[in-house]
């Protein structure tokens, strides 16, 4: 397997505060790395360092083997799908226009874009005939996040960046979307960096879990290892979610 994203010894400062300290992290082809941590642990900042929304002070990020600084920023971002908690869709564009954003920016031919948009809407469970011409405000929160994911996938990027994409949804919809995301990930075989503060979500969607604490990697583990770990911060998360296993 090839590494899509390699982060080594990355540090980052925001407003004079050290937000990330010596982060090492690799995302391989086809795997979803769940970035778990409390508020303020630096997980969102780490995500934003990857697509250059936040400048880094030290260390290195390589995307598809090439240093971030060597990439044309715009071209690079178009190869990284991006989904945020809410409000990411353009309210003045239809669902179809939103999903077709990056292919259109890339100047792909219209018929191809239309086909791609329809296929993606279908695969996130929103029939294009019914939803394509709607505006974001005419959708439920869950439907909007589905559109967001379809948009992120539209240009077939090798990497997805997701910042608590389901955090604002009701528990039932959230569970539904988490499951669907795992299926999508399998069928599209994308590498993904998935930020969450929800340990259940991390275990559900992540093929690997990276736990951040005060801006540093506290633990990197598979979901199975994570459930059994004696790492203190991990136990706190599991306990808070009512998932602490017996005997520990």
């Amino acid at each position, binding site marked *: 397997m090839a590494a899509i994203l390699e982060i080594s010894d990355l540090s980052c400062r925001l407003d004079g505060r050290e937000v990330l300290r010596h982060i090492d992290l690799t995302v391989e082809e086809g795997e979803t790395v769940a970035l778990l941590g409390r508020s303020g642990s630096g997980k969102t900042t780490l995500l934003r360092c990857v697509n250059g*929304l936040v400048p880094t002070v030290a260390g290195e990020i390589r995307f598809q083997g090439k240093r971030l600084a060597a990439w044309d920023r715009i071209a690079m971002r178009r190869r990284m799908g*991006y989904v*945020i908690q809410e409000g990411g869709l353009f309210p003045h564009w239809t669902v179809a226009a939103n999903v077709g954003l*990056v292919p259109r920016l890339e100047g792909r031919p219209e018929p191809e874009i239309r086909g791609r948009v329809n296929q993606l809407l279908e695969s996130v469970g929103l029939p294009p005939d019914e939803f394509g011409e709607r505006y974001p405000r005419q959708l439920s929160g869950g439907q909007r996040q589905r559109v967001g994911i379809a948009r992120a996938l539209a240009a077939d990027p090798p990497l997805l*960046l997701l910042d608590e994409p389901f955090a604002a949804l009701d528990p039932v919809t959230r569970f539904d979307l988490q499951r669907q995301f795992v299926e999508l990930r399998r069928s599209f075989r994308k590498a993904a960096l998935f930020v969450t503060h929800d340990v259940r979500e991390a275990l559900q969607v992540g093929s690997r879990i990276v736990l951040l604490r005060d801006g540093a990697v506290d633990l990197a583990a598979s979901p199975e290892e994570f459930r059994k770990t004696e790492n203190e911060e991990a136990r706190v998360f599991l306990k808070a979610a009512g998932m602490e296993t017996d005997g520990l």
Partner: protein
Amino acid sequence: MGSEIASASLEHVELVLITLVIAAVLGLPAAVLILRRARWRRFVVGFVNIAQTVPSLAMFGFLLPLPLVGGIGKRTAIVALTLYALLPIVRNTLVGLLGVDAGVRESAEAMGMTERQILWQVELPLATPSIVTGFRLATVATIGTATIAAAIGGGGLGVFIFRGIAMYDKSMVLAGAVPAAAMAIAADEVLGFIERRLAAR
């Protein structure tokens, strides 16, 4: 008298339209240019705010002796009116642009849109209702203030008002005031309608 009112009204409309076009040509790009420059923003907004606080009659008085922009006539009137019209246009354009949802802007940037694409395809369309509000306020205010332009030979409906005051002739004052008020109300309604249509989208 009727035809005199008609031609004065026309002249009034002309003053207002020229003013608004100039204010738009200056104000919209100014707002866009200072959008991401906080220091400039304070300076420019401060300037148009101060311009707004100068009483209009005094403004015309200040401008009279200045070279190029001053003197008796329409040009001075238009300069003064433009200074007043700038505030609502610049301010509302900024409010609209800065009011674009942070998540929308962030996504646009993260999806690989260039600054120019974000401005033209995301920020300006989303700011349009607010920009139209600015125009509506500027239009209504300019129609009113333009009556004072007659004091420095700017013409328009203000001619009747000043003449009526001088002659102590109430109906003469009304001949200027009523069409000006009607014009302001009509402009307010029409632009308000456009504004609501845009906001509903």
